[in-house]
């Protein structure tokens, strides 16, 4: 009996090793095939990720709650340490903001009156939806977050994600219960913007670091460090005028922008439906909207 088992192992061992090697080679080839699928038909990969997000969002939602409480606890200890300083700072800021409020009210009023004089077509109304962030970035070279709201809650693809501070990104993948938001800092993110003060147009591109770069700026730019960057609304994905960040350096022709949003503190984001038609090229097979003749 014992000898027979021995004989079997003697025959089986090389076969098993060979089998394992073939399996490894096949699976490695499958991984490369997946990368090829990603390159050739990104829509397919996108749908798969949307479905996977649906499955795992409830689990992540549950798990992210205690971690959120822990983060809150750490924050409150930190805040306690500099309460007095912060109070003074806030008082000063409030005084400044009250001044701005008066200015804003006056301008709003004036704006409304001028609009009626001009018979300007009103901007479409925006609808809000607030969603909890349940998943962080899945890797060192991806900048995206997962939120616990999806198609059934009224989220649509390419909707704008904002916080009180400014633009976060846009909905890049959509499931029924969850959606993935591509952050501004991802290397696949491109947002049409302009420099608020000088009205110089550019494309804001992420490069996976905490800063973003301005591409396609005119050669003779006058924008300087400290200038605010806002969305321009070109392309129809983002509405115009959303605050994005400020210029932190303009050395060697590379203009770097620091976002207003603090990525570490993202807990809730607002998904805004500006009811923009979206001028992104429709995918093949989708109906093309009729343009004016």
């Amino acid at each position, binding site marked *: 009996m014992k000898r027979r088992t021995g004989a079997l192992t003697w025959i089986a061992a090389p076969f098993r090793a060979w089998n394992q090697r073939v399996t490894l080679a096949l699976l490695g080839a499958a991984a490369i095939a997946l990368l090829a699928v990603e390159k050739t038909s990104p829509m397919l990969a996108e749908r798969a990720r949307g479905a996977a997000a649906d499955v795992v969002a409830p689990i992540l939602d549950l798990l992210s709650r205690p971690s959120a409480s822990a983060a809150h606890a750490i924050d409150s200890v930190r805040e306690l340490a500099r309460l007095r300083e912060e109070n003074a700072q806030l008082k000063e800021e409030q005084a400044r903001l009250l001044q701005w409020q008066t200015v804003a009210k006056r301008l709003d009023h004036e704006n409304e009156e001028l609009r009626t004089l001009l018979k300007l077509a009103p901007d479409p109304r925006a609808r809000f939806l607030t969603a909890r962030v349940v998943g*962080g970035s899945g890797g060192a070279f991806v900048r995206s977050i997962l939120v616990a709201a999806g198609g059934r809650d009224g989220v649509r693809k390419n909707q704008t994600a904002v916080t009180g501070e400014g633009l976060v990104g846009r909905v890049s993948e959509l499931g029924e219960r969850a959606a993935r938001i591509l952050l501004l800092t991802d290397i696949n993110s491109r947002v049409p913007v302009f420099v608020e003060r000088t009205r110089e147009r550019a494309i804001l591109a992420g490069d996976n670091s905490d800063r973003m770069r301005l591409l396609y700026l005119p050669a003779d730019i006058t924008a300087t460090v400290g200038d605010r960057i806002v969305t321009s609304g070109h392309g129809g994905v983002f509405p115009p005028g959303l605050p994005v960040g400020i210029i932190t350096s303009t050395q060697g022709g590379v203009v770097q922008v620091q976002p207003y949003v603090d990525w570490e503190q993202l807990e809730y984001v607002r998904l805004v439906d500006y009811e923009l038609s979206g001028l992104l090229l429709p995918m093949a097979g989708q109906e093309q909207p009729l343009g004016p003749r």
Partner: protein
Amino acid sequence: MTSTFWQRLDLLARNASPLAFTVLLLIVGLVPLRLPFLPPLGINLVLVSVYYWAIHRPSTLPAPALFIVGLAADLLGGGFLGINVLILLLTHAATVSARRWFVGASFAIVWWGYAVVATLAMLLAWMITMTLAGATADVTPGISGVLFGVGAYPLLATFFAHAQRALLR
């Protein structure tokens, strides 16, 4: 008959524990921890598990299981599909083939080996990402992720060693 069935089930559960730890570390890497100065963890903790078990119990993480874990990491992390699959398969295969230098080696050498493996894996992910995206990506988050994994290695390895003694014998 019944006892052999339960024995088999017991053995199966024990042998599946490395895979369970790996999946658990994958989920930990996905939850937004919102801790200050924490780099994006991504696959780094999973890589520690894959490396450890490739040295100590190579058969407990078969290639199909690694494929599924990698695919889950890709689907849930939002990156390009296939990157993490490739990295986990290659890490496991490379570590298994270099196993004879690590078995019985001092902890420092095994730890150093992990640093090398994790760095190579990160550089591979970096290059694939740039090739597919057609743009340059900043490598700093990758480096900080690797450093975090290397820092976490002694803690996780100690835990795995205890688990190995208790569960796998």
